[in-house]
Protein backbone atom coordinates (compact mmCIF):
# COMPACT_ATOMS: atom_id res chain seq x y z
CA UNK A 1 0.00 0.00 0.00
CA UNK A 2 2.84 2.33 0.83
CA UNK A 3 5.54 0.93 -1.44
CA UNK A 4 6.15 3.16 -4.39
CA UNK A 5 5.17 1.59 -7.66
CA UNK A 6 5.31 4.40 -10.15
CA UNK A 7 1.77 5.68 -10.02
CA UNK A 8 0.77 8.53 -7.72
CA UNK A 9 -0.20 7.58 -4.18
CA UNK A 10 -3.82 8.88 -4.20
CA UNK A 11 -4.54 6.85 -7.31
CA UNK A 12 -3.12 3.68 -5.80
CA UNK A 13 -4.94 4.35 -2.55
CA UNK A 14 -8.33 4.57 -4.20
CA UNK A 15 -7.54 1.62 -6.41
CA UNK A 16 -6.70 -0.41 -3.31
CA UNK A 17 -9.78 0.72 -1.40
CA UNK A 18 -11.90 0.00 -4.45
CA UNK A 19 -10.40 -3.47 -4.69
CA UNK A 20 -11.24 -4.21 -1.05
CA UNK A 21 -14.79 -2.96 -1.46
CA UNK A 22 -15.23 -5.01 -4.61
CA UNK A 23 -14.01 -8.12 -2.82
CA UNK A 24 -16.37 -7.40 0.06
CA UNK A 25 -19.33 -6.95 -2.27
CA UNK A 26 -18.52 -10.13 -4.08
CA UNK A 27 -18.26 -12.03 -0.79
CA UNK A 28 -21.49 -10.56 0.57
CA UNK A 29 -23.32 -11.80 -2.50
CA UNK A 30 -22.43 -15.35 -1.53
CA UNK A 31 -22.86 -14.84 2.20
CA UNK A 32 -26.28 -13.21 2.05
CA UNK A 33 -27.60 -15.89 -0.28
CA UNK A 34 -26.10 -18.55 2.01
CA UNK A 35 -23.98 -20.01 -0.78
CA UNK A 36 -21.12 -21.29 1.34
CA UNK A 37 -20.27 -24.50 3.12
CA UNK A 38 -20.52 -24.30 6.92
CA UNK A 39 -18.00 -27.13 7.18
CA UNK A 40 -15.41 -24.99 5.44
CA UNK A 41 -16.12 -22.06 7.74
CA UNK A 42 -15.58 -24.40 10.69
CA UNK A 43 -12.30 -25.77 9.43
CA UNK A 44 -11.04 -22.24 8.78
CA UNK A 45 -12.25 -21.18 12.23
CA UNK A 46 -10.32 -24.04 13.76
CA UNK A 47 -7.11 -23.10 12.01
CA UNK A 48 -7.43 -19.32 12.24
CA UNK A 49 -9.18 -18.87 15.57
CA UNK A 50 -8.74 -21.88 17.83
CA UNK A 51 -5.08 -22.24 17.02
CA UNK A 52 -4.54 -18.53 17.71
CA UNK A 53 -5.75 -18.98 21.29
CA UNK A 54 -2.37 -19.70 22.91
CA UNK A 55 -0.71 -16.58 21.52
CA UNK A 56 -3.74 -14.45 22.40
CA UNK A 57 -3.73 -15.82 25.95
CA UNK A 58 -0.06 -14.98 26.30
CA UNK A 59 -0.21 -11.47 24.86
CA UNK A 60 -3.36 -10.40 26.68
CA UNK A 61 -2.17 -11.97 29.94
CA UNK A 62 1.03 -9.94 29.86
CA UNK A 63 -0.91 -6.82 28.89
CA UNK A 64 -3.15 -7.15 31.95
CA UNK A 65 -0.12 -7.77 34.14
CA UNK A 66 1.73 -4.71 32.92
CA UNK A 67 -1.21 -2.29 33.14
CA UNK A 68 -1.82 -3.42 36.68
CA UNK A 69 1.87 -3.21 37.51
CA UNK A 70 2.01 0.41 36.39
CA UNK A 71 -1.29 1.40 37.97
CA UNK A 72 -0.84 -0.25 41.34
CA UNK A 73 2.29 1.69 42.26
CA UNK A 74 0.66 5.02 41.34
CA UNK A 75 -2.70 4.23 42.85
CA UNK A 76 -1.30 3.10 46.18
CA UNK A 77 1.05 6.09 46.36
CA UNK A 78 -1.86 8.50 45.88
CA UNK A 79 -4.37 6.48 47.86
CA UNK A 80 -6.61 5.50 44.97
CA UNK A 81 -6.49 1.73 45.23
CA UNK A 82 -10.20 1.60 44.39
CA UNK A 83 -9.24 2.64 40.85
CA UNK A 84 -6.97 -0.31 40.05
CA UNK A 85 -9.53 -2.80 38.76
CA UNK A 86 -11.35 -0.10 36.85
CA UNK A 87 -8.33 1.21 35.01
CA UNK A 88 -7.24 -2.24 33.90
CA UNK A 89 -10.73 -3.19 32.74
CA UNK A 90 -11.49 0.17 31.16
CA UNK A 91 -8.37 0.23 29.01
CA UNK A 92 -8.62 -3.44 28.13
CA UNK A 93 -12.25 -3.85 27.22
CA UNK A 94 -12.59 -0.65 25.26
CA UNK A 95 -9.20 -0.32 23.57
CA UNK A 96 -6.35 -2.69 24.16
CA UNK A 97 -8.27 -5.96 24.15
CA UNK A 98 -9.77 -5.58 20.67
CA UNK A 99 -6.79 -3.81 19.19
CA UNK A 100 -3.94 -5.94 20.48
CA UNK A 101 -5.87 -9.10 19.71
CA UNK A 102 -6.46 -7.86 16.19
CA UNK A 103 -2.81 -6.96 15.69
CA UNK A 104 -1.58 -10.31 16.92
CA UNK A 105 -4.27 -11.91 14.78
CA UNK A 106 -3.12 -9.99 11.70
CA UNK A 107 0.38 -11.28 12.23
CA UNK A 108 -0.65 -14.86 12.69
CA UNK A 109 -3.88 -15.53 10.80
CA UNK A 110 -3.71 -12.72 8.25
CA UNK A 111 -0.20 -13.68 7.21
CA UNK A 112 -1.24 -17.33 6.96
CA UNK A 113 -4.18 -16.48 4.70
CA UNK A 114 -2.09 -14.32 2.38
CA UNK A 115 0.73 -16.82 2.14
CA UNK A 116 -1.67 -19.64 1.40
CA UNK A 117 -3.69 -17.80 -1.25
CA UNK A 118 -0.49 -16.33 -2.69
CA UNK A 119 1.05 -19.73 -3.21
CA UNK A 120 -2.22 -20.90 -4.74
CA UNK A 121 -1.93 -18.06 -7.25
CA UNK A 122 1.66 -18.97 -8.02
CA UNK A 123 0.81 -22.65 -8.55
CA UNK A 124 -2.17 -21.79 -10.78
CA UNK A 125 -4.67 -23.23 -8.28
CA UNK A 126 -6.75 -20.06 -8.26
CA UNK A 127 -6.99 -20.16 -12.04
CA UNK A 128 -7.86 -23.83 -11.80
CA UNK A 129 -10.90 -22.96 -9.67
CA UNK A 130 -11.90 -20.31 -12.17
CA UNK A 131 -11.33 -22.57 -15.14
CA UNK A 132 -13.74 -25.06 -13.61
CA UNK A 133 -16.34 -22.36 -13.29
CA UNK A 134 -15.92 -21.93 -9.52
CA UNK A 135 -15.51 -18.55 -7.94
CA UNK A 136 -12.37 -18.24 -5.81
CA UNK A 137 -14.25 -15.67 -3.74
CA UNK A 138 -16.92 -18.20 -2.93
CA UNK A 139 -14.60 -21.13 -2.29
CA UNK A 140 -11.69 -19.38 -0.59
CA UNK A 141 -12.59 -15.90 0.63
CA UNK A 142 -16.06 -16.43 2.11
CA UNK A 143 -15.11 -19.16 4.63
CA UNK A 144 -12.09 -17.17 5.81
CA UNK A 145 -14.02 -13.93 6.03
CA UNK A 146 -16.79 -15.48 8.10
CA UNK A 147 -14.33 -17.26 10.36
CA UNK A 148 -12.47 -14.00 11.03
CA UNK A 149 -15.52 -11.79 11.54
CA UNK A 150 -17.14 -14.23 13.93
CA UNK A 151 -13.96 -15.54 15.49
CA UNK A 152 -12.03 -12.38 16.31
CA UNK A 153 -14.70 -11.10 18.74
CA UNK A 154 -14.57 -14.51 20.44
CA UNK A 155 -10.82 -14.29 20.77
CA UNK A 156 -11.28 -10.79 22.13
CA UNK A 157 -13.63 -12.06 24.84
CA UNK A 158 -10.87 -14.43 25.93
CA UNK A 159 -8.31 -11.66 25.77
CA UNK A 160 -10.47 -9.29 27.84
CA UNK A 161 -11.12 -11.86 30.54
CA UNK A 162 -7.53 -12.98 30.78
CA UNK A 163 -6.17 -9.44 30.87
CA UNK A 164 -8.54 -8.41 33.63
CA UNK A 165 -7.71 -11.54 35.64
CA UNK A 166 -4.02 -10.91 35.01
CA UNK A 167 -4.50 -7.41 36.39
CA UNK A 168 -6.11 -8.80 39.50
CA UNK A 169 -3.30 -11.28 40.00
CA UNK A 170 -0.69 -8.53 39.73
CA UNK A 171 -2.55 -6.28 42.16
CA UNK A 172 -2.88 -9.09 44.65
CA UNK A 173 0.77 -9.99 44.24
CA UNK A 174 1.98 -6.44 44.85
CA UNK A 175 -0.31 -4.97 47.46
CA UNK A 176 -2.61 -7.87 48.38
CA UNK A 177 -5.56 -5.98 47.00
CA UNK A 178 -8.77 -7.75 48.05
CA UNK A 179 -10.77 -9.37 45.32
CA UNK A 180 -13.81 -7.43 46.47
CA UNK A 181 -12.06 -4.09 45.96
CA UNK A 182 -10.74 -5.09 42.54
CA UNK A 183 -13.96 -6.44 41.08
CA UNK A 184 -16.03 -3.68 42.58
CA UNK A 185 -13.83 -1.19 40.82
CA UNK A 186 -14.15 -3.12 37.56
CA UNK A 187 -17.93 -3.01 37.79
CA UNK A 188 -17.98 0.67 38.62
CA UNK A 189 -15.93 1.59 35.63
CA UNK A 190 -17.29 -0.48 32.77
CA UNK A 191 -20.72 -1.65 31.76
CA UNK A 192 -21.92 -4.24 29.33
CA UNK A 193 -22.10 -1.70 26.54
CA UNK A 194 -18.36 -0.99 26.77
CA UNK A 195 -17.76 -4.68 26.42
CA UNK A 196 -20.19 -4.99 23.49
CA UNK A 197 -18.71 -1.99 21.68
CA UNK A 198 -15.26 -3.51 22.11
CA UNK A 199 -16.51 -6.70 20.49
CA UNK A 200 -18.06 -4.73 17.65
CA UNK A 201 -14.66 -3.21 17.02
CA UNK A 202 -13.17 -6.69 17.02
CA UNK A 203 -15.64 -7.80 14.35
CA UNK A 204 -14.64 -4.85 12.16
CA UNK A 205 -10.97 -5.70 12.68
CA UNK A 206 -11.70 -9.31 11.74
CA UNK A 207 -13.24 -8.07 8.51
CA UNK A 208 -10.22 -5.86 7.80
CA UNK A 209 -7.70 -8.62 8.43
CA UNK A 210 -9.56 -11.14 6.27
CA UNK A 211 -10.25 -8.75 3.39
CA UNK A 212 -6.75 -7.34 3.23
CA UNK A 213 -5.17 -10.78 3.56
CA UNK A 214 -7.29 -12.29 0.77
CA UNK A 215 -6.90 -9.26 -1.47
CA UNK A 216 -3.13 -9.24 -1.11
CA UNK A 217 -2.97 -12.98 -1.63
CA UNK A 218 -4.87 -12.75 -4.90
CA UNK A 219 -2.58 -9.94 -6.07
CA UNK A 220 0.50 -12.12 -5.84
CA UNK A 221 2.83 -11.98 -8.82
CA UNK A 222 6.02 -13.86 -9.42
CA UNK A 223 7.13 -16.88 -7.43
CA UNK A 224 8.12 -17.43 -3.82
CA UNK A 225 9.51 -13.92 -3.61
CA UNK A 226 6.16 -12.49 -4.61
CA UNK A 227 4.43 -14.52 -1.90
CA UNK A 228 6.83 -13.12 0.68
CA UNK A 229 6.24 -9.59 -0.52
CA UNK A 230 2.43 -9.70 -0.39
CA UNK A 231 2.46 -11.44 2.98
CA UNK A 232 4.51 -8.64 4.53
CA UNK A 233 2.35 -6.09 2.79
CA UNK A 234 -0.84 -7.70 4.08
CA UNK A 235 0.35 -7.58 7.69
CA UNK A 236 1.58 -3.98 7.39
CA UNK A 237 -1.57 -2.76 5.67
CA UNK A 238 -3.94 -4.46 8.07
CA UNK A 239 -2.10 -3.17 11.12
CA UNK A 240 -2.27 0.39 9.78
CA UNK A 241 -5.95 -0.01 9.03
CA UNK A 242 -6.60 -1.50 12.47
CA UNK A 243 -5.04 1.54 14.15
CA UNK A 244 -6.93 3.95 11.94
CA UNK A 245 -10.27 2.21 12.33
CA UNK A 246 -9.73 1.81 16.07
CA UNK A 247 -9.40 5.55 16.36
CA UNK A 248 -12.40 6.21 14.16
CA UNK A 249 -14.57 3.66 15.95
CA UNK A 250 -13.61 4.92 19.41
CA UNK A 251 -14.43 8.39 18.23
CA UNK A 252 -17.87 7.33 17.07
CA UNK A 253 -18.74 4.72 19.72
CA UNK A 254 -17.38 6.16 22.93
CA UNK A 255 -18.18 9.83 22.65
Amino acid at each position, binding site marked *: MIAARGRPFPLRFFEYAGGLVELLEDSLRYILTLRFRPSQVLSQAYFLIVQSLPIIVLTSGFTGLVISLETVAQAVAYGFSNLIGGSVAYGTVRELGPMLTAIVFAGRAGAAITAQLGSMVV*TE*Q*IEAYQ*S*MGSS*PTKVLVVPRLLACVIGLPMLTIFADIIAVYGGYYMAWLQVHLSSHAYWNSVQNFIGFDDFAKGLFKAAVFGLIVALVACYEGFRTQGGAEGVGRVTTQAVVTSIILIFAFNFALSFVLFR
Partner: protein
Amino acid sequence: MVLRSDDVDTSVMVSSADRETAAAPGIPPPEDVAMSMQHAYLLYGKKTVLSDCSLDCKRGEVTCVIGLSGAGKSTILRLINGLRRPQGGHIYVNGSDIVGLPERDLIEVRKKMGFAFQGAALFDSLTVTENVSYPLYEHTKLSPDEIEKRVDDTLESLGLSDVADRLPAELSGGMQKRVGFARAIVNEPEIILFDEPTTGLDPIMTNVITDTIRTIQSKLHATSVVVMHDMPSVYAIADNIAMLFEGTIIASGPAKDFRRSQNPIIQQFLQGSEVGPIPL
Protein backbone atom coordinates in the same frame (compact mmCIF):
# COMPACT_ATOMS: atom_id res chain seq x y z
CA MET B 1 -14.90 -11.19 -10.40
CA VAL B 2 -12.49 -9.81 -7.93
CA LEU B 3 -9.24 -11.09 -9.21
CA ARG B 4 -8.14 -8.41 -11.52
CA SER B 5 -7.50 -10.74 -14.40
CA ASP B 6 -4.67 -8.52 -15.50
CA ASP B 7 -2.94 -5.38 -14.45
CA VAL B 8 -3.99 -3.75 -17.63
CA ASP B 9 -3.29 -0.15 -18.24
CA THR B 10 -5.66 0.48 -21.10
CA SER B 11 -4.09 3.83 -21.84
CA VAL B 12 -1.10 2.10 -23.38
CA MET B 13 -3.36 -0.14 -25.46
CA VAL B 14 -2.08 -0.87 -28.90
CA SER B 15 -0.14 1.23 -31.33
CA SER B 16 -2.28 3.47 -33.48
CA ALA B 17 -1.57 1.49 -36.65
CA ASP B 18 -2.91 -1.64 -34.97
CA ARG B 19 -5.81 0.04 -33.29
CA GLU B 20 -8.08 -0.33 -36.27
CA THR B 21 -7.69 -4.08 -36.60
CA ALA B 22 -8.13 -4.46 -32.83
CA ALA B 23 -11.30 -2.41 -32.79
CA ALA B 24 -12.77 -3.90 -35.96
CA PRO B 25 -15.98 -5.85 -35.44
CA GLY B 26 -15.49 -9.59 -35.13
CA ILE B 27 -16.72 -11.98 -37.76
CA PRO B 28 -18.66 -14.92 -36.34
CA PRO B 29 -16.84 -18.01 -37.55
CA PRO B 30 -18.49 -20.82 -39.56
CA GLU B 31 -20.23 -23.62 -37.68
CA ASP B 32 -17.30 -26.03 -37.92
CA VAL B 33 -14.93 -23.69 -36.08
CA ALA B 34 -15.30 -24.22 -32.33
CA MET B 35 -12.88 -21.49 -31.30
CA SER B 36 -11.87 -18.49 -33.29
CA MET B 37 -9.47 -15.87 -31.99
CA GLN B 38 -9.44 -12.76 -34.14
CA HIS B 39 -6.83 -9.98 -33.98
CA ALA B 40 -6.26 -10.42 -30.26
CA TYR B 41 -3.96 -8.05 -28.40
CA LEU B 42 -2.69 -8.70 -24.93
CA LEU B 43 -0.26 -6.61 -22.93
CA TYR B 44 1.09 -7.12 -19.43
CA GLY B 45 1.81 -3.61 -18.28
CA LYS B 46 3.70 -2.17 -21.19
CA LYS B 47 4.94 -5.50 -22.43
CA THR B 48 3.15 -6.76 -25.52
CA VAL B 49 2.63 -10.52 -25.37
CA LEU B 50 0.13 -11.02 -28.19
CA SER B 51 -0.37 -8.60 -31.00
CA ASP B 52 -2.85 -9.14 -33.80
CA CYS B 53 -2.97 -12.82 -32.98
CA SER B 54 -5.55 -14.88 -34.89
CA LEU B 55 -6.22 -18.59 -34.61
CA ASP B 56 -9.08 -20.87 -35.66
CA CYS B 57 -9.66 -24.30 -34.16
CA LYS B 58 -11.84 -26.70 -36.11
CA ARG B 59 -14.52 -28.54 -34.18
CA GLY B 60 -13.54 -32.09 -33.28
CA GLU B 61 -9.92 -31.63 -34.26
CA VAL B 62 -6.65 -31.26 -32.39
CA THR B 63 -4.83 -28.02 -32.93
CA CYS B 64 -1.29 -27.84 -31.61
CA VAL B 65 0.20 -24.47 -30.83
CA ILE B 66 3.98 -24.48 -30.96
CA GLY B 67 6.41 -21.71 -30.20
CA LEU B 68 9.35 -20.67 -28.09
CA SER B 69 9.18 -20.51 -24.30
CA GLY B 70 7.69 -17.24 -23.20
CA ALA B 71 6.12 -16.64 -26.61
CA GLY B 72 2.65 -16.45 -25.08
CA LYS B 73 1.28 -19.94 -25.70
CA SER B 74 -0.15 -20.31 -22.20
CA THR B 75 -1.57 -16.83 -22.56
CA ILE B 76 -3.52 -17.94 -25.64
CA LEU B 77 -5.12 -20.77 -23.63
CA ARG B 78 -5.99 -18.35 -20.82
CA LEU B 79 -7.68 -16.05 -23.31
CA ILE B 80 -9.74 -18.90 -24.74
CA ASN B 81 -10.83 -19.85 -21.22
CA GLY B 82 -11.64 -16.25 -20.31
CA LEU B 83 -9.07 -16.18 -17.50
CA ARG B 84 -7.55 -13.15 -19.18
CA ARG B 85 -9.28 -10.51 -21.22
CA PRO B 86 -7.57 -9.20 -24.34
CA GLN B 87 -7.17 -5.45 -24.78
CA GLY B 88 -8.34 -5.79 -28.33
CA GLY B 89 -9.81 -8.34 -30.70
CA HIS B 90 -12.46 -11.03 -30.46
CA ILE B 91 -12.61 -14.59 -29.23
CA TYR B 92 -15.48 -16.74 -30.41
CA VAL B 93 -16.22 -19.91 -28.48
CA ASN B 94 -18.98 -22.04 -29.94
CA GLY B 95 -20.12 -19.14 -32.06
CA SER B 96 -20.38 -16.37 -29.49
CA ASP B 97 -17.85 -13.70 -28.59
CA ILE B 98 -16.62 -14.17 -25.02
CA VAL B 99 -14.69 -10.90 -24.89
CA GLY B 100 -16.63 -8.57 -22.65
CA LEU B 101 -18.88 -11.28 -21.25
CA PRO B 102 -19.52 -10.74 -17.53
CA GLU B 103 -17.91 -13.24 -15.19
CA ARG B 104 -21.23 -14.95 -14.54
CA ASP B 105 -21.66 -15.83 -18.22
CA LEU B 106 -18.04 -16.88 -18.55
CA ILE B 107 -18.76 -19.56 -15.95
CA GLU B 108 -21.18 -21.20 -18.37
CA VAL B 109 -18.55 -21.09 -21.10
CA ARG B 110 -15.93 -22.58 -18.80
CA LYS B 111 -18.13 -25.44 -17.66
CA LYS B 112 -17.92 -26.83 -21.17
CA MET B 113 -14.17 -26.51 -21.25
CA GLY B 114 -11.42 -28.48 -19.59
CA PHE B 115 -8.11 -26.89 -18.78
CA ALA B 116 -5.02 -28.97 -18.00
CA PHE B 117 -2.51 -26.50 -16.60
CA GLN B 118 1.20 -26.51 -17.28
CA GLY B 119 2.02 -27.02 -13.61
CA ALA B 120 -0.93 -29.38 -12.94
CA ALA B 121 -2.47 -26.80 -10.52
CA LEU B 122 -3.86 -29.50 -8.24
CA PHE B 123 -5.64 -28.39 -5.08
CA ASP B 124 -3.00 -29.33 -2.56
CA SER B 125 -5.36 -29.87 0.35
CA LEU B 126 -7.45 -32.42 -1.57
CA THR B 127 -6.60 -36.01 -2.46
CA VAL B 128 -6.26 -37.18 -6.05
CA THR B 129 -9.82 -38.54 -6.07
CA GLU B 130 -11.20 -35.35 -4.56
CA ASN B 131 -9.33 -33.26 -7.10
CA VAL B 132 -10.65 -35.23 -10.03
CA SER B 133 -14.22 -35.34 -8.73
CA TYR B 134 -14.29 -31.60 -8.04
CA PRO B 135 -15.67 -30.51 -11.45
CA LEU B 136 -18.31 -33.24 -11.31
CA TYR B 137 -19.58 -32.18 -7.89
CA GLU B 138 -19.56 -28.55 -8.97
CA HIS B 139 -21.27 -28.82 -12.30
CA THR B 140 -23.18 -32.03 -12.71
CA LYS B 141 -26.17 -33.56 -11.03
CA LEU B 142 -24.58 -37.01 -11.00
CA SER B 143 -25.08 -39.08 -7.87
CA PRO B 144 -22.04 -39.71 -5.65
CA ASP B 145 -21.96 -43.32 -6.92
CA GLU B 146 -21.91 -42.23 -10.53
CA ILE B 147 -19.23 -39.67 -9.78
CA GLU B 148 -17.13 -42.29 -8.05
CA LYS B 149 -17.42 -44.61 -11.02
CA ARG B 150 -16.58 -41.90 -13.52
CA VAL B 151 -13.58 -40.79 -11.48
CA ASP B 152 -12.35 -44.37 -11.02
CA ASP B 153 -12.59 -45.01 -14.76
CA THR B 154 -10.73 -41.84 -15.60
CA LEU B 155 -8.00 -42.53 -13.06
CA GLU B 156 -7.63 -46.07 -14.32
CA SER B 157 -7.29 -45.01 -17.93
CA LEU B 158 -4.38 -42.81 -16.91
CA GLY B 159 -2.75 -45.43 -14.69
CA LEU B 160 -3.51 -43.51 -11.51
CA SER B 161 -5.68 -46.00 -9.60
CA ASP B 162 -2.91 -46.74 -7.11
CA VAL B 163 -2.50 -43.16 -6.02
CA ALA B 164 -6.19 -42.29 -5.76
CA ASP B 165 -6.05 -41.56 -2.03
CA ARG B 166 -2.78 -39.67 -1.96
CA LEU B 167 -2.27 -35.95 -1.66
CA PRO B 168 -0.66 -34.11 -4.60
CA ALA B 169 2.50 -33.37 -2.60
CA GLU B 170 3.12 -37.12 -2.34
CA LEU B 171 3.23 -37.58 -6.12
CA SER B 172 5.99 -37.10 -8.65
CA GLY B 173 5.71 -34.19 -11.05
CA GLY B 174 4.71 -36.46 -13.90
CA MET B 175 1.97 -38.07 -11.86
CA GLN B 176 0.66 -34.69 -10.74
CA LYS B 177 0.46 -33.74 -14.36
CA ARG B 178 -1.61 -36.80 -15.19
CA VAL B 179 -3.96 -36.03 -12.32
CA GLY B 180 -4.41 -32.50 -13.65
CA PHE B 181 -5.11 -34.07 -17.01
CA ALA B 182 -7.69 -36.42 -15.47
CA ARG B 183 -9.40 -33.49 -13.79
CA ALA B 184 -9.59 -31.61 -17.09
CA ILE B 185 -11.24 -34.44 -19.01
CA VAL B 186 -13.44 -36.10 -16.37
CA ASN B 187 -16.27 -33.73 -17.18
CA GLU B 188 -16.21 -34.79 -20.84
CA PRO B 189 -15.88 -31.19 -22.01
CA GLU B 190 -16.49 -29.96 -25.54
CA ILE B 191 -13.26 -28.03 -25.69
CA ILE B 192 -10.10 -29.14 -23.92
CA LEU B 193 -7.07 -26.95 -23.41
CA PHE B 194 -3.81 -28.73 -22.68
CA ASP B 195 -0.84 -26.68 -21.58
CA GLU B 196 2.28 -28.74 -22.26
CA PRO B 197 0.71 -32.06 -21.27
CA THR B 198 3.84 -34.09 -21.99
CA THR B 199 6.58 -31.75 -20.84
CA GLY B 200 8.60 -33.41 -18.11
CA LEU B 201 7.17 -36.89 -18.63
CA ASP B 202 9.12 -40.01 -19.53
CA PRO B 203 8.72 -41.40 -23.07
CA ILE B 204 6.27 -44.09 -22.01
CA MET B 205 4.02 -41.69 -20.15
CA THR B 206 4.29 -39.30 -23.06
CA ASN B 207 2.85 -42.02 -25.25
CA VAL B 208 0.10 -42.74 -22.75
CA ILE B 209 -0.84 -39.06 -22.75
CA THR B 210 -0.78 -38.66 -26.51
CA ASP B 211 -2.84 -41.85 -26.89
CA THR B 212 -5.29 -40.56 -24.32
CA ILE B 213 -5.68 -37.29 -26.15
CA ARG B 214 -6.42 -39.21 -29.35
CA THR B 215 -8.84 -41.53 -27.56
CA ILE B 216 -10.75 -38.70 -25.96
CA GLN B 217 -10.81 -37.08 -29.33
CA SER B 218 -12.48 -40.02 -31.01
CA LYS B 219 -14.75 -40.73 -28.06
CA LEU B 220 -15.95 -37.23 -27.20
CA HIS B 221 -15.40 -35.52 -30.53
CA ALA B 222 -13.97 -32.72 -28.46
CA THR B 223 -12.01 -29.82 -29.82
CA SER B 224 -8.53 -29.79 -28.35
CA VAL B 225 -6.02 -27.00 -28.24
CA VAL B 226 -2.67 -28.38 -27.20
CA VAL B 227 0.43 -26.38 -26.41
CA MET B 228 3.51 -28.51 -26.98
CA HIS B 229 7.14 -28.26 -27.93
CA ASP B 230 8.07 -31.77 -28.54
CA MET B 231 7.64 -32.37 -32.24
CA PRO B 232 7.22 -36.18 -32.33
CA SER B 233 4.25 -35.86 -29.97
CA VAL B 234 2.91 -32.98 -32.00
CA TYR B 235 3.00 -35.08 -35.18
CA ALA B 236 1.39 -37.94 -33.27
CA ILE B 237 -1.68 -36.02 -32.22
CA ALA B 238 -2.10 -32.85 -34.27
CA ASP B 239 -4.65 -32.40 -37.01
CA ASN B 240 -3.52 -28.83 -37.34
CA ILE B 241 -0.43 -26.98 -36.22
CA ALA B 242 -0.12 -23.27 -35.53
CA MET B 243 3.15 -21.54 -34.85
CA LEU B 244 3.28 -18.57 -32.50
CA PHE B 245 6.17 -16.19 -33.00
CA GLU B 246 6.65 -12.66 -31.69
CA GLY B 247 3.09 -12.34 -30.49
CA THR B 248 1.27 -13.57 -33.52
CA ILE B 249 0.41 -16.82 -35.29
CA ILE B 250 2.76 -16.74 -38.24
CA ALA B 251 1.52 -19.93 -39.85
CA SER B 252 -1.16 -22.50 -39.30
CA GLY B 253 -2.45 -25.39 -41.30
CA PRO B 254 -2.87 -29.15 -41.51
CA ALA B 255 -0.07 -31.04 -39.78
CA LYS B 256 1.11 -32.80 -42.91
CA ASP B 257 1.63 -29.54 -44.80
CA PHE B 258 3.37 -27.92 -41.89
CA ARG B 259 6.45 -30.09 -42.11
CA ARG B 260 6.99 -29.05 -45.69
CA SER B 261 6.60 -25.35 -44.97
CA GLN B 262 9.21 -23.17 -46.60
CA ASN B 263 8.95 -20.56 -43.87
CA PRO B 264 12.50 -20.18 -42.49
CA ILE B 265 11.25 -19.54 -38.94
CA ILE B 266 9.24 -22.76 -38.96
CA GLN B 267 12.10 -24.70 -40.51
CA GLN B 268 14.49 -23.44 -37.87
CA PHE B 269 12.05 -24.30 -35.08
CA LEU B 270 11.38 -27.81 -36.41
CA GLN B 271 15.08 -28.52 -36.79
CA GLY B 272 15.96 -26.93 -33.48
CA SER B 273 18.76 -25.12 -35.20
CA GLU B 274 20.69 -22.30 -33.59
CA VAL B 275 21.20 -20.46 -36.84
CA GLY B 276 18.33 -18.74 -38.58
CA PRO B 277 15.90 -15.85 -38.25
CA ILE B 278 14.83 -16.62 -34.65
CA PRO B 279 16.75 -14.37 -32.25
CA LEU B 280 18.27 -16.32 -29.36
